[in-house]
């Protein structure tokens, strides 16, 4: 295991920079310093991004274990510590968070609803709070610390939706809150059980104990201890992802959230669920993961097809994109439960890809909304002619989302499906056959959306004089387009970052599989 230090780690710097920004904002006056507030918020999120790049430079991709770790006692009487670090499973997600947040904040500058409802300072404070909590989720190595961050993310998102959302924002905010909290209570129980039994909440220590046999969770049947613990974590994560059929909070939250809220929600927040599955379910409960894999993969595949099919019938652009997440994250979950290196690496990369492309789609929908104040598909048509640059960028993002080879989405989906096809833990050929059908359905709903918005005759008077993209909007979209191409054409560096860590995880699951096989009569 990598050495754990008490001194300040870059991870802590990345984690707390948004908090520093938040504190600075507290001392500003909304009435007189609004511009400064906006740019300060943006500045700190950008600084966080730069710090995370430094962290990336300091990171050694050849090593599997935790790096840049920092640990202090927090609640020593309960064996709870402030323990943060990154490894190959999390570093990309930290980078995704720090990449998306400045864009989300910058895109907020032009959000009409902020001027309408006011309280802009509070809004930016919530955004930075959100960033802190999400990074915290990805870097926490202590189960309890993880849980704290996990719950904290709820608060700013609850208010982002509840204060600056659309008409039915309260309903959506409460629903979002209730579903997630209901899921997390089970996880809390599981965490407390594990921490109590191990005598520590530090994940690396627990894993070492599992490895050495000092600690074990009996796994004999789907109702044994390990299986129940596995489900405790899984249900919390499944609500967040969301895995079909636990997705019914998602369309409300997405449709009601303000643009930047949807971007954060789809771009980052949902990945906390899939990340949690990889980090905790697979690592802590490999035997249960093996047993549950064929079942969960079926849910994932239903999600892929169901999400795509339901997207196709939507009349609201934002809702269409929201349901597409159910389909896309189905791919991620399928990859994870293929339990091989291809599947898991594809899954992690696809988390990033989905963040980029679906985040991008929500940004685009938001820009349309600012111009037309509607999200109804029927209100558009022929927009490409009025806004050619916007149309072109939208096309790239749409294609990325539907997995055009050469762009990022394809690399993730392909690797996932490659993994699931060769999975030894379920009928890979059959499963992948159905999952791959998802790419046909993806083309159907994505192109339908693109056609309805951008193609056809420009027959509506309101659409004739839409303003071109503002430079701030371009500044938000161009980084997204660049990353779409970058990952699409050169994904190897991204795979390299996680290769060692995923390799270790796969080996852990593989060991469990061998143990089970040898134990069987």
């Amino acid at each position, binding site marked *: 295991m990598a050495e754990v230090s008490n001194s300040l780690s870059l991870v802590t710097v990345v984690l707390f920079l948004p908090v520093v920004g938040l504190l600075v904002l507290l001392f500003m006056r909304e009435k007189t310093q609004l511009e400064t507030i906006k740019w300060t918020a943006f500045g700190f999120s950008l600084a966080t991004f730069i710090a995370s790049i430094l962290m990336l430079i300091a990171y050694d991709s050849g090593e599997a274990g935790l790096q840049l770790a920092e640990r202090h006692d927090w609640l020593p009487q309960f064996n709870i510590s402030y323990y943060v670090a990154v490894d190959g499973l999390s570093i990309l997600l930290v980078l995704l968070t720090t990449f998306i947040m400045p864009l989300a904040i910058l895109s907020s500058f032009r959000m009409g609803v902020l001027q309408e409802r006011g309280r802009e300072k509070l809004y930016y404070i919530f955004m930075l709070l959100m960033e802190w909590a999400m990074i915290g989720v990805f870097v926490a190595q202590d189960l309890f610390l993880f849980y704290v961050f996990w719950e904290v993310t709820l608060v700013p998102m609850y208010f982002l939706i509840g204060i600056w959302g659309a008409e039915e924002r309260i309903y959506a905010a409460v629903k979002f809150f*209730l579903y997630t909290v209901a899921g997390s209570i089970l996880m809390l129980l599981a965490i407390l059980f594990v921490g109590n039994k191990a005598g520590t909440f530090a994940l690396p220590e627990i894993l070492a104990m599992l490895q050495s046999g000092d600690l074990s969770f009996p796994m004999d049947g789907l109702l044994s201890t390990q299986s129940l613990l596995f489900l405790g974590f899984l249900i919390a994560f499944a609500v967040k992802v969301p895995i079909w059929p636990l997705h019914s909070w998602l369309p409300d939250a997405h449709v009601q959230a303000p643009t930047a809220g949807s971007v954060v929600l789809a771009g980052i927040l949902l990945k906390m669920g899939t990340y949690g599955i990889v980090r905790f379910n697979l690592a802590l409960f490999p035997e249960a993961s093996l047993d549950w894999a064929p079942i969960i993969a079926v849910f994932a595949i239903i999600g892929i097809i169901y999400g795509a099919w339901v997207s196709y019938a*939507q009349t609201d652009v934002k809702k269409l994109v929201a349901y597409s997440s159910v389909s896309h994250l189905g791919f991620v979950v399928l990859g994870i439960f293929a339990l091989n290196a291809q599947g898991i690496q594809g899954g992690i990369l696809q988390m990033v890809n989905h963040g980029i492309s679906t985040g991008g789609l929500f940004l685009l929908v938001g820009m349309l909304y600012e111009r037309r104040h509607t999200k109804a598909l029927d209100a558009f048509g022929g927009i490409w002619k009025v806004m050619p640059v916007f149309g072109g960028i939208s096309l790239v993002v749409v294609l990325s989302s539907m997995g055009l080879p050469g762009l990022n989405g394809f690399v993730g989906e392909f690797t996932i499906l490659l993994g699931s096809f*060769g999975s030894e833990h379920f009928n890979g050929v059959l499963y992948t056959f159905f999952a791959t059908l998802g790419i046909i359905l993806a083309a159907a709903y994505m192109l339908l959306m693109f056609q309805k918005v951008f193609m056809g005759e420009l027959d509506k008077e309101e659409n004739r004089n839409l303003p071109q993209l503002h430079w701030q909007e371009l500044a938000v979209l161009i980084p997204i387009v660049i990353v779409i191409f970058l990952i699409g054409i050169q994904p190897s560096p991204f795979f390299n970052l996680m290769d060692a860590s995923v390799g270790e995880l796969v080996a852990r699951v593989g060991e469990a599989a061998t143990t089970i096989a040898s134990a069987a009569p």
Partner: protein
Amino acid sequence: MESIPRIVPLVVVFPIIGLIINLFWGRRLGEKGAGWVASVAALLSFAMSLALAGYLVSNNFQAAIVNPPLIGEWIHIASANVNIPWQMRVDTLSVTMLLVVTGVGSIIHIYAIGYMHGDERFARFFAYLNLFLAFMLILVLGNNFLMMFVGWEGVGLSSFLLIGFWFDKAKGEGLKNSNAAKKAFIVNRVGDFGVLMSIFLMFWTFSTLDFFKPGEVVNTHLAEVSHGEEAAAEEAEAATPEDESHDAEAAAAEGEHGEVVALTSNDHLELSEMGVFGQAERMLEDNQDVTFGPITLSLKTTITLITLFMLLGVTGKSAQIPLFVWLPDAMAGPTPVSALIHAATMVTAGVYIMTRSNVLFVEASFTSFLVAIIGAGTAIMAGYIAIAQWDIKRVLAYSTISQLGFMVAAVGVGAYSAAMFHLVTHAFFKALLFLGSGSVIHGMEHGHHHVHEDEHGADHDDDFDPQDMRFMGGLITKMPLTYLAYIIGTLALAGIFPLAGFWSKDEILADAFTHGSDGHADGWIVLVLLLLAAGFTAFYMWRQVEMVFHGKPRSEAAAHASESPVIMTGPLMALAFLSIVGGFLNTPSILGLDQIFGLHRMTTWLEQSVVNAHAGEFQPLIAIIALGLALGAIAVARSVYGGEKAVTEDGSDPLAKGATAGLWQMAHTRLHWDEFYDAIAVRPYNATAYFLANIVDWEFLHDYIHNAIIGRGFKGLGDVLSKPVDLGIIDGVVNGVGSVIRRLADWMRQSQSGYVRLYAISFLLGVVLVLIILLIPMINQ
């Protein structure tokens, strides 16, 4: 000489540069500038392709594998043994495709400068054309199936963009165009699903997706090439008509080598040092089993599955039964697009990839049988439909589907060389015919405008359609150059001796005959169906010639049509020339022609990279029957449509009445394929989508489950907790927290206060649980 293959990335880079220039500065360049930037990019790629062809000739056909600088790696997962690079392959097969794509492509680019004149998105059109070229070249140059797939879907994207190029046309035309574009993409995605499945199968069978690996001998069946044959082969390549320039190069190179001793076997290589095809051949020797997780299949079965899935992709991209339905609609794109993408190049990708994978198809006899039947069935079905269409481009579209059927059927009977030969000649004459039809449409539109300028203010005949052959007639005098080109194209397509189509079609028929004689039933089926299809071909083409060019003008527009500018007729002449001489690329030994043009040069050239390529034996009897059928069909068409009879008084087809009415109507309604798919796929899909979205997802999951179960459950739990627990012990502790939440709630001025209480309680519940369970270890102590 050794460094020449390293230029191959440039073949792709030039169109990308053209694309970028036109995308960002196209408007500023103006029409001339934008058009020529794109055309020069295409021409430069063509020049590179010629250099590569020269390299192959002078280097004993040694294939080269090139890793492009800077971006060599693509999907590389070290621990999972996945390594799929960006890697290009220069061999006789890929260079054949390169020459066709860039050669015909350049001609069409130049033509389009004239055709697209005055279009408001002129530069964008050329940007898309370059985009298409780049993807098509990636498709043919990739040395692995996944890179091929990048091009494969990429050309689909370009096709989508170009079919929908006029997405904003008035009167619902724009919507129709964008529908056609979308249909093309989605139908092709069905095929792509098959390609992906076959890729997964291949990866888990061979652990690689590379066609070949460096140092591997491709065609181990070829004996060591003697010096004399080598020289002959070189001459063969030098005679390729579309490249005049490299004769000198080849000659210069001749002195340099000759002593190259190529290895003739791969026995010294490990399996992991070979690509998919080499491994397949080796593994088939002992037909090992392949395991995919819990499933174990024999290698033969696996290869059959691989090829079947690949065939699904082929039927999409190369417009075969059952996925051909997108191609007729694709004619919504501007005519140069139809010529380049939907006739000459993209749609042949399926034939290319099957030829590339010939090692697998030869082993999968069931798939090959199916390929043959699908190809021949498509050839005759589409040929039949083409007979009864009014739209000049739609006739050509069905003709293209039919001719692609010829190529696919050829692959099915193992005639890879004939398939590629027909692919090349078809590119010449079908591009010619499409560009010719474009010239006709252009002339008709011109005539239409001319008429309406005269009668200022008069009512337009709004049903005028410049593509409807009923409005044409007598264009021979108005557009003599276009007529000349069109006739050459027609005769070449109909397979009239000695034009290009005669030779390539005949080779397919002859191979089908041989295949049948070897005891394969599909050989005979293919032979009969293709002969009939060839008859249809000559018939519908001559019908078209009669309707468009002969007789008297049937509209004002036709009467005032004018010849197209040189920038359009020039390219027509170039393609007409190729359609005349293209057949001599692969001359059989007949009439002493092989003395002049060399014997089976294309086959000799192709067999360097296509293991199962073989020269078809010339069958005089078959050739005579085919020629007789074609001439007979032309004579019949002449007698039905000749003179003034092309269209009857009431504007219908002479065959639409009397004994042939039923048959004509069936062809005219295109056998109701679209309606069929509408009924079995599109409408059920839509209905299910609305059912899932509105009933299952919204009313049931979202509303019912939420309100009745989750909502009520929470409320019940909340009520229980709020009375004894909330009011009791905890109330005092969390009073502060509660009041904060209450204030927040008021401040949000929200109405559903019940919900806020619920959430407060659930939050509380979390806190309580934390406290209780954390206290347990304390109690233990």
